[in-house]
């Protein structure tokens, strides 16, 4: 008890409570060291490669060639067209994922209690690997095997309805990517929706808001931060996508779905042009960071302030 303590007794050392910094260090330093070794090392190595021309025939050689690899990227037509596809795929995937996620969340929210178990079914696509999703959407979309042809068949048509077409294969792939990722978004949004006070909906009724207005002014605002977080996550994942497209279309038809990761794969793994591949991969990294940074500037900062 405090009154038994006298002023001349030395205070017990505060060591009983360690500081934030030391606690943080104890916890995070081993992990960060691990990440440093296994992430920074490959990154540094890729950085090294990007300034060299690597050859394997007639003996391995790495010749310093300065910024040549980087400048080559700028004049490489296939880089720009793949970048365009990546951006198109990413933008569509993000919009579709959030829209579908929101739609699913709204449906799940309105499920009566006895139908709650349906939630457990709706989450399932999220558990499918991008690899598996690629296979699903290949067979689903091909004119030879796909749903389009099957449905056309019901109406007596014997035409194929091919969804893997150069004109809209990116859109089709974006639908598949959204199928894969939207359930998780839906569940996080649902978690958010369930905390929105019901009173706000009463208020909206009193204000005679239309359904759309209610959605816009009552349902949506509390979700905006989650939507922002997922727009970032989806952007990063969409830009990194490789295995999904690799199994779904192999970059085809032709090169119509050769996104940046796929082009990188070809440069590094098929042509073994490691230096050039490394340089281009830094452009991809820059694009990913740039896109998330831009999202943050345009949207995230606003959400954070609120």
């Amino acid at each position, binding site marked *: *008890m*405090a*009154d038994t*303590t006298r002023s001349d007794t030395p205070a017990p050392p505060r060591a009983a409570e360690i500081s934030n910094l030391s606690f943080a260090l104890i916890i995070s330093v081993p992990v960060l060291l691990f990440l440093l070794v296994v992430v920074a090392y490959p990154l540094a190595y890729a950085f090294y490669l990007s300034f060299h021309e690597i050859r394997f025939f007639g003996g391995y050689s790495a010749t310093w060639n300065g910024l040549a690899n980087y400048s080559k990227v700028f004049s490489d037509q296939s880089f720009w067209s793949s970048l365009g596809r990546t951006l198109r795929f990413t933008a569509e995937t993000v919009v579709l994922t959030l829209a579908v996620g929101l739609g699913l969340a709204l449906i799940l929210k309105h499920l009566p209690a006895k139908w709650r178990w349906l939630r457990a079914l709706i989450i399932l696509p999220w558990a499918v690997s991008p690899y598996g999703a690629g296979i699903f959407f290949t067979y689903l979309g091909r004119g030879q095997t796909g749903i389009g042809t099957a449905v056309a068949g019901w109406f007596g048509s014997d035409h194929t309805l091919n969804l893997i077409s150069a004109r809209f294969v990116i859109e089709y792939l974006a639908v598949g990517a959204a199928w894969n990722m939207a359930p998780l978004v839906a569940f996080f949004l649902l978690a958010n929706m369930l905390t929105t006070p019901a009173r706000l909906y009463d208020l909206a009724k009193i204000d005679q808001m239309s359904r759309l207005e209610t959605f816009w002014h009552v349902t949506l605002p509390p979700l905006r931060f989650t939507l922002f977080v997922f727009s970032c996550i989806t952007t990063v994942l969409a830009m990194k996508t490789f295995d999904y497209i690799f199994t779904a279309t192999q970059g085809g038809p032709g090169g119509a779905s050769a996104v940046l990761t796929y082009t990188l794969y070809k440069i590094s793994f098929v042509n073994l042009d490691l230096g050039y591949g490394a340089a281009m991969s830094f452009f991809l990294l820059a694009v990913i960071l740039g896109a998330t940074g831009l999202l943050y500037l345009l949207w995230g900062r606003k959400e954070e302030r609120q």
Partner: protein
Amino acid sequence: MARIDLRNIVKTYGSHHAVENLDMTIEDGELLVLLGPSGCGKSTTMNMIAGLTEPTSGQILFDGADVTSHSPHQRNIAMVFQSSLLYPHLSAHDNIYMSLKRSGLSKQEIEARIAHAAQTVDVTRLLDKMPSQLSGGERQRVATAKAIVREPAGFLLDEPLSALDASLRLSLRAELVNLQKRIRTTMIFVTHDQVEAMTMGDRIGVMRKGRLEQIGTPTDIYNRPATLFVAGFVGVPPMNFLKGTLEKADGRLWLINPSLRMEIKGEFANAAPQKEVILGIRPHLMRLTEAGASALPLTVYAIEQLGNEAIVICDGPDGGKIRVVAPAGFTAPVGARLDATFDSAAARLYDPASEQVLAVGKKA
């Protein structure tokens, strides 16, 4: 139960001064309320007393013993946090139990003390419930039980009532005061609500921007606000302010402003002529009159009927709002011209620059 001394406490976060040179004593068994707007440093001060935050410099003494570097637990304080924070995954009983887990008491003794504490704040029937199943008031009581079960040297409450609705706050306020008097523990209560402060505190410490503006009994604070800030912060309705210049004429002291020339009576020893001042007067001390020469000209803006009296809110001569207490049922059309008079001896004068009180009227 302890007397708590704060000596020259400073707390800085980088270049931001959260608390500056704070000296304060909380007497044993006293209920001190720390009052101020958000960001004034009152919570920081309490966290330093609790031992949750270490002061940048200065000393904290419990019964004369330096506890500045002691952990909260070593100080034997108890605390109720904002919104009556509880461990959400533990039942009410277990929440209370956590206070004693480290006490070294026997299981039996702990159970006895939990039972007693629960009884004291009447939560016995709630012990098996989870926090999410409790109402706001129930949570508050459980949090209180959790605090008192330790029989602490100091009992610290950080805006525990702020999330509750008005009527509940009213009753819990009384309960807390009653409890404090019963168990006679030193209690520090932080709030930004001046009514809460006035109704609960033995003494009130008003803080602003990291400084202690004034410390004293509620009557002291109300009647003799030491600074312009305290004057404006404490009291319902708030004190009226009039800007003006002091002038000596005919051996008398006048307050002059474009629409007013008013004699200031009473002793204003350090009032220098030609000085810009702000005159403060409580609405209760003003009376409405018919328009007249020496009175304050006002225009009716709105009238609030309180049942026992009416508060007439007017546009004053210098653009600010002036509130005057009138008898219940007083009516006047919006925009009507009225005049108000008051005994300038009951008014207080403040220096606009230092915001300190200039002189004190003769009568309080």
